[in-house]
């Protein structure tokens, strides 16, 4: 067999290449390095791709407009495929290049990195996902679930349902189903919903969907049997469009179906189109191309031929979310620079300080080109979330229509739960709550 020596040689060459040490990053000393963990392949790619493009476009935009007080941003993408072990590999790979902030882009990866981040001194920004308890900065020093967690999302959804019924007390005796992705992502909201069910006397029906969620016939059969008054959809990726198709097939009214903010983007409803009309979902961020920021990005990034993705994707819901995440990252570096030195590259610890002292007020929102689209956000040592404001948007058959009401998570419900969960986590990990003196450090 002639090929054998060749195969041998190839095997040897591979071993040779493997033993070579990994070359160092070709990054300049005065650049702020942001690793971008993304997934552009696999079952979650339709949702992961616009998110990733939004993140990258904002970095390019900041670089095109002179950097963060002159500090340019270096970045490198790493494909995780939404898999935890691949995500950990990416984290380890990019960490070595002086990563100063990571958006893991997946709840499972966030869980795995939460233990590693304090050791490596790299803050995690998990906008609208991750661990609900990590809102408590006293225990989760390095986690920043800005703008919301699954608990605040569930809380806002229940408030919205209460409003539709004309008061939260009217939910008594109602049946609310939760169709969820059977993973930490989908299970996180359950404790909050159970608490709310207890408070208002509605019945909660839990209907898990096995990941990735392409097979949901059995679940929707149960929906049909149980006839819940409302159904909450807690899906991601291909699970969302499948759920909507099943809802159509079983004849469940879309007006009674409410999604979390990860189930309310264009890829989720596109395939279902007009049939999904009436479906609503939380809107963590606005979408559209009218804001000055998006116009500027179109001009300075896309018109310059630098766009990370197709032009017509700009302004879509998940693209905007990626943009916002990166915006907060940049603002954190800016905040840190104001304290530790303008025009300098910030370390992971300094960026963490910046994230903890973010103060995006209305004036700053205006300067950022997002006036009226997001609400002010202010983080602190104890509150790593900053804001829980969220709206609801509905699919009218061709586009998402924003509804005017803002919801805030009810602090009297959330705070004790966060406190308890954080204390439990601290006890498990044998870590102490931070002292007040640590807050100003």
């Amino acid at each position, binding site marked *: 067999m002639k090929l054998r020596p060749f195969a041998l040689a190839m095997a040897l060459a591979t071993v040779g290449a493997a033993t070579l040490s990994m070359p160092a990053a070709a990054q300049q000393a005065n650049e702020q390095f942001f690793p971008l963990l993304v997934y552009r392949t696999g079952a979650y790619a339709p949702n992961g*791709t616009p998110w990733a493009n939004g993140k990258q476009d904002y970095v390019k935009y900041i670089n095109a407009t002179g950097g963060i007080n002159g500090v340019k941003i270096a970045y490198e993408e790493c494909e995780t495929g939404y898999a935890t072990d691949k995500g950990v590999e990416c984290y380890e*790979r990019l960490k070595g290049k002086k990563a100063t902030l990571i958006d893991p882009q997946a709840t499972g990866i966030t869980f*795995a990195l939460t233990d590693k981040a304090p050791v490596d001194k790299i803050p995690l920004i998990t906008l609208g996902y991750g661990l609900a308890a990590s809102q408590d900065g006293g225990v989760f020093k390095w986690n920043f679930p800005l703008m919301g967690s699954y608990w605040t999302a569930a809380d806002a959804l229940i408030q919205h349902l209460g409003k539709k019924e004309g008061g939260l007390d009217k939910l008594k005796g109602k049946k609310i189903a939760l169709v969820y992705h059977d*993973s930490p992502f989908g299970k996180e909201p359950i404790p909050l919903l159970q608490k709310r069910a207890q408070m208002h006397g509605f019945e909660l029906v839990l209907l898990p969907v096995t990941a990735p969620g392409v097979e949901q016939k059995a679940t929707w059969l149960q929906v049909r049997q149980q006839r819940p008054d409302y159904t909450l959809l807690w899906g991601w990726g291909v699970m969302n469009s499948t759920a909507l198709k099943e809802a159509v097939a079983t004849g469940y009214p879309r007006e009674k179906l409410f999604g979390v903010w990860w189930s309310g983007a264009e890829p989720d409803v596109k395939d279902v189109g007009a049939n999904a009309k009436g479906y609503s979902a939380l809107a963590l961020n606005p979408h559209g191309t009218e804001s000055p920021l998006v116009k500027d990005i179109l001009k300075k990034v896309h018109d310059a031929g630098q766009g990370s993705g197709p032009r017509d994707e700009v302004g879509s819901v998940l693209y905007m979310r990626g943009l916002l995440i990166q915006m907060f990252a940049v603002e954190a570096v800016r905040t840190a620079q104001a304290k530790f030195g303008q025009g300098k590259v910030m370390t992971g610890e300094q960026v963490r300080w910046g994230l903890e002292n973010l103060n995006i007020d209305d004036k700053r929102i205006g300067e950022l080109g997002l006036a009226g689209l997001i609400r002010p956000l202010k983080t602190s040592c104890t509150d790593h979330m900053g804001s829980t404001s969220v709206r609801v948007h509905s699919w009218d058959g061709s586009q998402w229509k924003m509804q005017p009401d803002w919801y805030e998570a009810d602090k009297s419900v959330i705070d004790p739960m966060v406190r308890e969960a954080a204390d439990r986590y601290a006890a498990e*990990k044998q870590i102490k709550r931070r002292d007040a003196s640590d807050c100003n450090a």
Partner: protein
Amino acid sequence: MLYRENGQFKASYAADQQIFPILQDRVAIGALLAIAFIVLPLFGSEYLFRAILIPFLILALAALGLNILVGYCGQISLGTGAFMAVGAYGAYNFLVRIDGMPLIGAMLLGGLSATVIGVLFGIPSLRIKGLYLAMATLAAQFFTDWAFLRISWFTNNSSSGSVSVAGLNVFGLPIESPVAKYLFCLVVVCVFALMAKNLTRSAIGRQWMAIRDMDVAAAVIGIRPMYAKLSAFAVSSFIVGVAGALWAFIHLGAWEPAAFSIDRSFQLLFMVIIGGLGSIMGAFFGAAFIIVLPILLDQIPQWFGIPLSTATTSHLVHMIFGALIVFFLIVEPHGLAKLWSIGKQKLRLWPFPH
């Protein structure tokens, strides 16, 4: 030339029966161990440990366990991920529910839990063979996926279903730094590899191989199929269970059932097939091929500064990796371990072949 055993006489049974009868092999393996235990901890980077060596060692251990079942005893199993999960969650429960449970104790008990489940799901092997058995072990996979997702007792009532461990230590030594984790895995793998090698050379190993080659003939010469098959399931799932506990505790730290999904079972089966069925060495080759190669391929465009988009790179990795699997299987169906032994044969004559 270099690899000739001429002049090495064996004067005792012990000398004839040692694992590496040829001096050169002993030197090579000694050097390899010296590199693994001394040189790498001194010079290896954190990335090398955390992203490459630790996953490689742990999955090599799991592949080793699977190889005993598939390679030595001929029982195809698609439930490896399940047995890893049982090991991981078993060890987790022993660790958090019993105060003062040492890490090694928890891991071994996790391995024993996997043994129990493995034997249970191995019982059908007494009546069904080949692909049908693969289907039966697939049931183990789906059952454990379901159990660890839905029965909250196993996850200590964690609200999200994700569990984590922290503050691991062995005999008072913390297993926190990458080097400590690496050395811990290395010791476990070495101990288990030695045990597995000796098992396969012993009476029980020969029984497994007899069953693999022809179970009717084996039964005729007095081998009890039930004992042989179930012992293979027991040993295999014990090793796989310990590997699962290592994967969860040492590599991931926080995990959910998805870490041990059906994909993991397939990945391990591929490792065993590509590495070489019925070879301890093959498990390591297979693990290196499946773990390290995609990571390497993923980074090659960057080394050369080729601007490829992340998605393209990712697709290319899958394509090249798949092509390589096909290529190696065509060239050498008996796996990389066979290639290795061919290489050794050639080296005996090199550089003056006939």
